[in-house]
């Protein structure tokens, strides 16, 4: 393949050089040029390989899979995992039980109302609720760290009930 191209290059260059030496003979067609079309369209080789991407087989990386949901929401002034959060806890617990080398941070959050440090403690309570639920499903505490972001990293900005509800949350973050 490579030799083929080199040969074509040499022939083409020779033709161009010949043309330069004889600028006035415009109607003359260099003889060598006739062999060029064969060289520029090489036949498909039976040694060519077309690669195929399968993507990762880790379900954690599937944006449409159940593990893509990593947030557990809480009611106002509540620190227990709601029914709608249980599948999230179960799915990630199953994954962590199968993948013992994977570790997660569980980050608890609160809405903006109240004191900074007390909110940090309340966010911790939410993270601990998720940690305990996962622990009861067999996930080792060595794979989990429950921490709090309190009111410091709100997902939703704004001082209204929908923003506050969005921020009463614990997030599972893989490390």
């Amino acid at each position: 393949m490579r030799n083929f191209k080199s040969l074509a290059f040499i022939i083409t260059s020779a033709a161009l050089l010949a043309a330069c030496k004889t600028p006035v003979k415009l109607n003359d067609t260099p003889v060598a040029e006739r062999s060029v079309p064969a060289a520029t369209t090489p036949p498909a080789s039976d040694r060519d390989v077309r690669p195929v991407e399968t993507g990762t087989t880790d379900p954690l990386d599937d944006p449409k899979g159940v593990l893509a949901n990593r947030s557990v929401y809480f009611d106002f002034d509540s620190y227990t995992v709601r029914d709608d959060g249980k599948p999230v806890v179960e799915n990630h617990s199953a994954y962590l039980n199968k993948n013992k080398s994977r570790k997660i941070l569980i980050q608890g959050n609160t809405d903006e109302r109240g004191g900074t440090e007390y909110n940090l403690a309340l966010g911790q309570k939410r993270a601990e609720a998720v940690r305990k639920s996962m622990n009861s499903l067999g996930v080792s505490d060595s794979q989990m760290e429950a921490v709090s972001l309190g009111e410091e990293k709100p997902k939703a900005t704004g001082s209204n009930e929908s923003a506050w509800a969005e921020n009463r949350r614990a997030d599972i973050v893989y490390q």
Partner: protein
Amino acid sequence: MKKITPFLFGAAMLAGAASHAQLRVEIAGVGSNQIPIAVAGFADESVAPAQVSAIIKADLERSGVFKVIDAGTVISETSNVDFGTWKGRGADALVVGSVQKLADGSFDVRYKLLDTVKGSQLSTLSQGVTAKYTRLSAHKIADDIYLKLTGARGAFATRIAYVNENRGAHDYRLEVADADGEGTQVAVRSNEPIISPAWSPDGGKVAYVSFEQRKPVIYVQNLMTGKRTVVSNQKGSNSAPAWSPDGTKLAVALSKDGHYQVYSVNIDGTGLRRLSNSNGIDTEPQFSADGQTIYFTSDRSGGPQIYKMPASGGNATRVTFNGNYNISPRVASDGKTLAWISQRDGGFSLYAMDLASGQELRLADGATEPSFSPNGKYIMYATKGGGRTGLAVVSTDGRIKQRLSTNAGNIREPNWGPFMK
């Protein structure tokens, strides 16, 4: 319990010298029985980068304790003063002085405090300062005036730490400024939140909580060298650092045992020891001034309430009983007054309690994160207004209130530093 009187904005005194301040001070409400004091321009004070007499006037006005009379003239500390004239203008005291630029580029700031009633000298000071700290020399003169005329130590030369944050830009700064909000210096700049700064008793270090490791971790930073150490990075959350009065230990709140409890740790991170023991949240520890007691917030009885226990740990006793949400205890340096945040009627208010009598005083509404001035006369706190968070100061008797505002960012988490040598 007494609710504070609404402030008369018409009677507000504005601190004229703070026009280019990064934190603007507005005063609403005045104290009764103000001491009338005349402040003269200092001779040759224009040679220094800061106008010393204007800073003294602003400090005295902001305290609410003085009625400042602009002398309208320049008087050096060496001039002969006609006391009768000043007495006639209603001034009980007169401040005079001068600023001299020395050959090495530093400044000699001199002042005299005169009693116009007795016709005598009450105090005099001479300070050699670099250009950068001429502001500080003015604050020190104001402190001296406050001490001589009220008997209490002034806090004008102290500093404050606070967090200046712009969440949209992921810009979080721990800043240090003079108590009047001027002379801002950045101590920490981070892309992640910083909370709960706490000055060491010697004023040289600040403990704080940083989220740079995606979780709260406690650091202590030497302000002069910028050197910082991790004091607590236990599994889980690490927060709410509070210095012991001797500066050797921090009381902290950690979740390492599965829920927030109060611990003590040496400032080098060694000697971690659990102090509180409950099934609920125990957080926000604060040492009493004598170091014998730790006040803290606990939800062991349901909602958060303030408790106290021996500094070595042990049985806790409940301190607050009114309302269902009482947090953020702070004790005044004299050990007599407790300030805290209470949620009543929906909003969060700053309260003070006389610990001996249990008498409560509502000081301000829309308040969180209180911090006492080192002389116990004022409480700084974070307050929300116009969608932004700023700082405000209220006198412990509730009569004088100031708001420190800025043009950009959210200012929160104030902590008032100690007296410095």
